[in-house]
């Protein structure tokens, strides 16, 4: 799809790494378990008890990352608030569902229901900012975040907005972890999450969670992280994905050789990762293959963390060694091709450029 240049001018991230910091990208912590939860900020620093008591964790995280991204960008109020989330407010959904079944539809707490709808993340951010502009939510499995990003890109292209707050947010509860484990999402044992993706070709990955917000703008500023040059999203492509990637790159006046990093959604799951390794071989991108899920874990909107890694590394001028297949740090990267797929059915491509300042 043809888009106008979009600048990433602010990022806020809460994940299984240090909150609201780039430390997680350049000096990440490793874990030895297949279910890793977020490192939480001190919520009392951000919310009064009166406000705090009725917003669930995923919403708190998203409000904090949204505000962080906005303040980094220097923009006061976004022209659009768009969120992607695979499972939405699953914690409250489960609480309501559990007590509905257990108590046979009696004595149910309204607060759990109110917070169970997926759109309560975007709308709570809006309420918190008192932002009455365009507001939307996308809930499409492993490409929920990219769906939100496309929505923003279309509005930018039509000049309907000059800025957008786009967030990817998912939470993993113990129960949902159990459910997804039954259908093969998670590896049985994980010894070193940081090395998991590079070394493991097993069934399943390790589970993470996170809320990552981006303040996007049509204008570059001195804090800009990177530039989103192009993006595409497609379902069950009828031509080989390699061909789609070549067309995507060429449409930007570039060749495959110009790509410095092929950032992938590799997760350590053999079936998932084979899609990327095949492309790496066929398009001569193997040496440039990189990943990020070793830092953030697998969750439906982990692509938001991938975008964070790409943008932050372009700003810093260093792509960290622990995210590269060959384990060698790269400097002076200009073009990152970010490719994510979900079950080899949904594919997203994002081309990021270093900003020219």
């Amino acid at each position, binding site marked *: 799809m043809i888009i106008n240049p979009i600048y990433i001018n602010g990022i806020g991230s809460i994940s299984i790494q240090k909150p609201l910091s780039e430390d997680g990208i350049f000096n990440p912590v490793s874990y030895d378990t297949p279910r890793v939860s977020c490192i939480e900020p001190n919520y009392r620093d951000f919310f009064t008890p009166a406000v705090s008591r009725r917003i669930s964790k995923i919403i708190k995280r998203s409000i904090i990352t949204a505000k962080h991204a906005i303040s980094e960008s220097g923009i006061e109020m976004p022209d659009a608030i768009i969120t992607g989330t695979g499972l*939405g407010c699953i914690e409250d959904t489960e609480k309501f569902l559990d007590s509905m079944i257990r108590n046979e539809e009696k004595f149910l707490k309204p607060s759990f*229901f109110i917070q169970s709808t*997926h759109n309560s993340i975007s*709308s709570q951010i809006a309420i918190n900012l008192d932002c009455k502009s365009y507001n939307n939510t996308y*809930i499409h499995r492993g490409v929920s975040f990219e769906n939100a990003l496309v*929505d923003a890109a*279309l509005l930018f292209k039509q000049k309907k907005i000059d800025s957008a707050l786009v967030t990817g947010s998912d939470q993993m509860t113990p129960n949902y972890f159990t*459910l997804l484990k039954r259908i093969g999402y998670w590896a049985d044992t994980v010894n070193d999450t940081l090395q998991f993706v590079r070394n493991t070709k097993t069934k399943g990955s390790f589970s993470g969670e996170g809320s990552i917000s981006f303040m996007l703008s049509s204008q570059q500023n001195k804090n800009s992280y990177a530039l989103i040059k192009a993006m595409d999203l497609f379902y069950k492509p009828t031509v080989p994905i390699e061909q789609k990637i070549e067309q995507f790159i060429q449409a930007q006046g570039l060749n495959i050789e110009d790509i410095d990093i092929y950032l992938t959604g590799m997760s350590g799951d053999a079936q998932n990762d084979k899609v990327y390794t095949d492309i790496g071989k066929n398009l001569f991108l193997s040496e440039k293959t990189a990943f990020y899920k070793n830092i953030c874990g697998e969750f439906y909107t982990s692509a938001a963390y991938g975008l964070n890694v790409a943008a932050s590394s372009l700003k810093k001028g260093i792509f960290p060694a622990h995210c590269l297949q060959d384990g060698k740090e790269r400097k002076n990267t200009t073009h990152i091709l970010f490719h994510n797929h979900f079950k080899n059915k949904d594919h997203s491509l994002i081309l990021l450029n270093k900003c020219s300042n």
Partner: protein
Amino acid sequence: MSEQSESVFITGMGIISAIGIGVDETLISLRESKSGIGKINHIDTIHDLPSAEVSLTDNQMMEILNIEAGQIVTRTSLMAKIAVKEAITQAKLTLDGKFRVALINGTTVGGMEKSELYYFDFLENDKYNEYIEAHDCGSCTESIADYFGGISYVSTPSTACSSAANAFILGQNLINEGVVDIAIVGGSECLTKFHLNGFKTLMILDDKVCRPFDETRAGINLGEAAAFCVLEAKKTIDKRAVKPLAKLSGYGNACDAYHQTASSPEGNGAFIAMDMALKTSNLQPTDIDYINAHGTGTPNNDESEGRAVVRVFGDNPPHISSTKPLTGHTTSAAGCVEAVISILSLNNNFIPGNLNFSQQIKTLPFKPTEINIETEVNHVLSNSFGFGGNNTSLVFSKIESAT
């Protein structure tokens, strides 16, 4: 946010709700003011609340769709497939890859009707594992896409009761930016115990028939439905030599940013959404012949929406009615159910009346259009408002006046 964009057209519609299977039955019910609200049959609940269910069972729908017994299906996806099938048939659309086609399905409950039956099994054993992934809403959308094939873009917007209306916005933008040629947009939601109980805890379900815009209104009757429209630009319509049914003239999307469930007393979000929809349509308030209101029948919504209507249209607004006393409140699907009703109003030149009305709301200067009225209809504004203040307004226009 009020920049105008190139218009897209509706070339096919499909609907399944308590007032009919298909557009023809729906039109008859509208003409005869035949409500679909009755007793709950398809879900096992302790609550005896008037609701508007689709008459068909899952098995009957599977038969209609030639889906073999034993396949993994959810009621939400079955209803959606029936509505999409009708919409693409009317649009003479064969999904053979000649055109790039998107499917945009607004939903919120997804596969919840199965999750609420099997949740403890999910946690304790492997008996219903195949339904675990059917829980998430994206899988519902993909199951619809896979049933038909030939879909190159899928998306699942979810803004509670305005989800399907927002599907139109994404569809128009994807077409205008050349990402796809055609977009099948709408939404589907079956009645679940989960949201029935959820609305019940908020004490906004009426145990009698709902009475939108009435002084005595006391809440919602829930309904279930799926509705989809085929959207395309003029050049695709010419290429395919099909006939447009109506034009999507414009849209507005705004957030009330007031409360998790309640609307602001002045209807701020609703006002901005309607105002923007008119501006993007390049229309004046006086151009609108009919407002298909969100009109849920809760004390809060109808007063707030009413005030916003007055702010946009003045004390004597055009014909306005809520069609929820007919269809029930079909939550995520409502935006497209009411789009179909709006287009039927345009093409048949009639205003569907607001059933169950007797007393004007004391704090509002207008009353809704009570009974069906035959009159020329050229432009209809349709409102869909969701929890959290996700407010969307769409304007549909008749083809003669549109071109």
